[in-house]
């Protein structure tokens, strides 16, 4: 049924949902602005022309506002603010003055005014403010189209039901679209905090932005699958794709309705235990969507990406910029940054010669960092500098002895002295914690507790190292099991030590987001979980339906079982009783895998 080559594209998912439909391309390429000198006597005419274009723009926006469907009325302020920008002195008066003083055409004068505003906005640190430059640009483009006699090509002119594909859409475009005809949209530019993304979510239309070249790769009328949950677009899908996504769509629809609405409410058990639910994250882009999913901080910020996407080691400044933004967006909630967790084999260039027969037991994570102090120092310095902008914490991976912690703490203190000397702001009380993921560290948790501010349990590696299995080895992968009694005992031990030494314990491995493990973890005393952000609304819902008091007696039983199978089936039965939706959540969860 499909014609043309099957292509997969990946962008930033800004509004969830799955749609399958025909592409409708909207040409919104930026207008090339001509520069013309004009005669002095023509200045009044040119100013009049500009005023008229602005007046027309105002009428267009006002019409769009009237067309706004009822459920979007609360978003009318976006269009109001666009109308306000139209007449803002920085844009309107400044352009008229430029026409007068420089004797140039209105288009160029407007472009110059915009460039000046853009320059001012680029110096603003708060991303929620600096990104508003996109609104200014939308308004400017609208005036330009009016000045140059281009049609506004409003999105409501679409004929049949389709998926809108565009370079960029303005909020006015999104607001004006006919929800009966538009199934969703994908754009080359844009990001998750743009008004367009906010509107898309309000309209409950799936949307993916930041696809870069979608408008070049997709032709009008192509069949598309848009997965707004993951950011994946399939152009010209085959029959298997379509079957798979139809099924996935049906499943997610059933679930979505009952959990997402409550995502932002706290997760409190029936008997009053408040659980902090945080997100594991890797890309700066993801961060903007975390609060909406109900994340109360980032419990695990993976930092490897910046090192891997580079040809060399990123600079301190590059790292600082990224961490700072994360800190600002999440503040006052914590951003727990895990220091570099890879080995030299992952780097291009200077370290690529290192050859290890068993990299999982080799020179990686804290070991690699302590051997390559210059890399470690620059990352720690960037993190400390970012600590001035929010609740930033440092987390050291793969700790297996107290010595490693002492060495790392010494380096951190050195850097603090350096920052003092250089008069650079940082939070002197920045918390430093460790990931317990090597069995030796669990055995000496009491010794480690004297030197750190918190523990986080990294269950993925802890299971792998404890059970001596390589998860990537197909022959033994089946042995990987979070319900192994040794793992449950270790977690219990760590929680006990945390209480004893009064330091917080969290968990950031996959177990933290596994609906079957969560009730057990909470009953064992875990109060902070960090997980794949998309599962957060579901886990919060689950937490709200359990009672620690009730589960306590189950735990006793669970700890007496000999095999993981007994533990798993016991959890499954007792959870099914308490929380009948668990099957559906399980499906959803494992589907992400």
């Amino acid at each position: 049924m499909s014609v043309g080559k099957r292509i997969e594209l990946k962008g930033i998912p800004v509004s969830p949902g799955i749609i399958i439909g025909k592409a409708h391309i909207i040409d919104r390429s930026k207008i090339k602005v001509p520069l013309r000198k004009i005669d002095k006597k023509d200045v009044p005419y040119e100013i009049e022309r500009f005023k008229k274009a602005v007046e027309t723009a105002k009428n267009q926006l006002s019409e769009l506002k009237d067309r706004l469907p009822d459920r979007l009325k609360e978003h009318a302020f976006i269009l109001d603010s666009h109308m306000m920008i139209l007449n803002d002195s920085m844009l309107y008066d400044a352009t008229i003055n430029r026409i007068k003083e420089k004797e140039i055409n209105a288009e160029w004068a407007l472009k110059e005014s915009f460039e000046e505003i853009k320059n001012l906005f680029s110096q603003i640190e708060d991303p929620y403010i600096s990104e508003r430059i996109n609104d200014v640009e939308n308004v400017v483009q609208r005036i330009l189209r009016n000045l140059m006699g281009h049609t506004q090509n409003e999105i409501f002119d679409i004929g049949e039901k389709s998926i809108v594909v565009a370079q960029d859409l303005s909020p006015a475009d999104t607001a004006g679209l006919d929800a009966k005809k538009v199934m969703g949209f994908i754009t080359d530019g844009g990001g998750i905090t743009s008004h367009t993304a906010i509107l898309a979510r309000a309209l409950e239309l799936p949307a993916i932005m930041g696809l870069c070249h979608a408008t070049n790769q997709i032709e009008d009328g192509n069949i598309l699958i848009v997965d707004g949950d993951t950011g994946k677009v399939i152009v010209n899908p085959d029959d298997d794709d379509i079957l798979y996504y139809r099924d996935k769509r049906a499943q997610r629809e059933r679930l979505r309705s009952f959990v997402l609405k409550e995502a932002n409410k706290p997760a409190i058990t029936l008997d009053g235990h408040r659980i902090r639910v945080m997100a594991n994250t890797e890309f700066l882009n993801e961060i903007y969507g975390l609060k909406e999913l109900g994340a109360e901080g980032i419990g695990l910020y993976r930092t490897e990406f910046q090192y891997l996407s580079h040809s060399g080691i990123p600079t301190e400044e590059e790292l600082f910029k990224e961490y700072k933004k994360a800190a600002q967006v999440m503040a006052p909630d914590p951003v727990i940054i895990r220091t570099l967790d890879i080995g030299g084999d992952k780097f291009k260039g200077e370290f690529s010669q290192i050859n290890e027969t068993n990299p999982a037991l080799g020179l990686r994570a804290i070991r690699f960092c302590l051997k390559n102090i210059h890399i470690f120092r620059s990352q720690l310095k960037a993190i400390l500098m970012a600590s001035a902008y929010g609740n930033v914490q440092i987390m050291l991976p793969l700790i297996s002895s107290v010595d490693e912690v002492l060495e790392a703490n010494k380096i951190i203190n050195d850097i603090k002295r350096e920052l003092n000397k250089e008069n650079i702001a940082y939070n002197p009380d920045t918390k430093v914690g460790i990931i317990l993921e090597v069995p030796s560290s669990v055995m000496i948790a009491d010794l480690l507790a004297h030197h750190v501010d918190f523990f986080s349990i990294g269950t993925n590696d802890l299971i792998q190292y404890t059970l001596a299995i390589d998860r990537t080895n197909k022959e033994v992968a089946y042995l990987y099991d979070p319900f192994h009694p040794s793992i449950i005992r270790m977690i219990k031990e760590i929680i006990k030590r945390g209480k004893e030494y009064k330091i917080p314990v969290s968990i950031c491995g996959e177990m933290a987001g596994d609906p079957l493990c969560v009730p057990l973890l909470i009953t064992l005393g875990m109060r902070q979980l960090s997980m794949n952000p998309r599962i957060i609304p579901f886990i919060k819902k689950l937490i709200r339906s359990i009672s620690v008091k009730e589960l306590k007696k189950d735990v006793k039983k669970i700890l007496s079982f000999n095999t993981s199978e007994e533990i798993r089936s016991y959890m499954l039965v007792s959870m099914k009783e308490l929380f009948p939706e668990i099957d559906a959540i399980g499906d959803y969860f494992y589907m992400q895998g």
Partner: protein
Amino acid sequence: MEVKKKLKVKNNLGLHARSAAMIVELVKKHNAKLYFRKGDHIIEGDSILSLLTLACPKGTELEVKAVGEDAQVLMDELTDLFEKGFGELS
């Protein structure tokens, strides 16, 4: 008439698009000019873009001056907006 006052941004989001827009709307309704000062930065309160470029997160202290016939009323209503955190739900 001229009224001066110090106001503190109390709402969580700070002076963002929505709160800045409310200030502009307020200025439009009155016969007075409004000036904001933060450090050496002085801007006029009838420009949403200027208000945004002032970049005021929660906790920012601003010196505000209203000049004109309605200066007092404008300042009173503005104070109320700041006090109520621009109607932002906390």
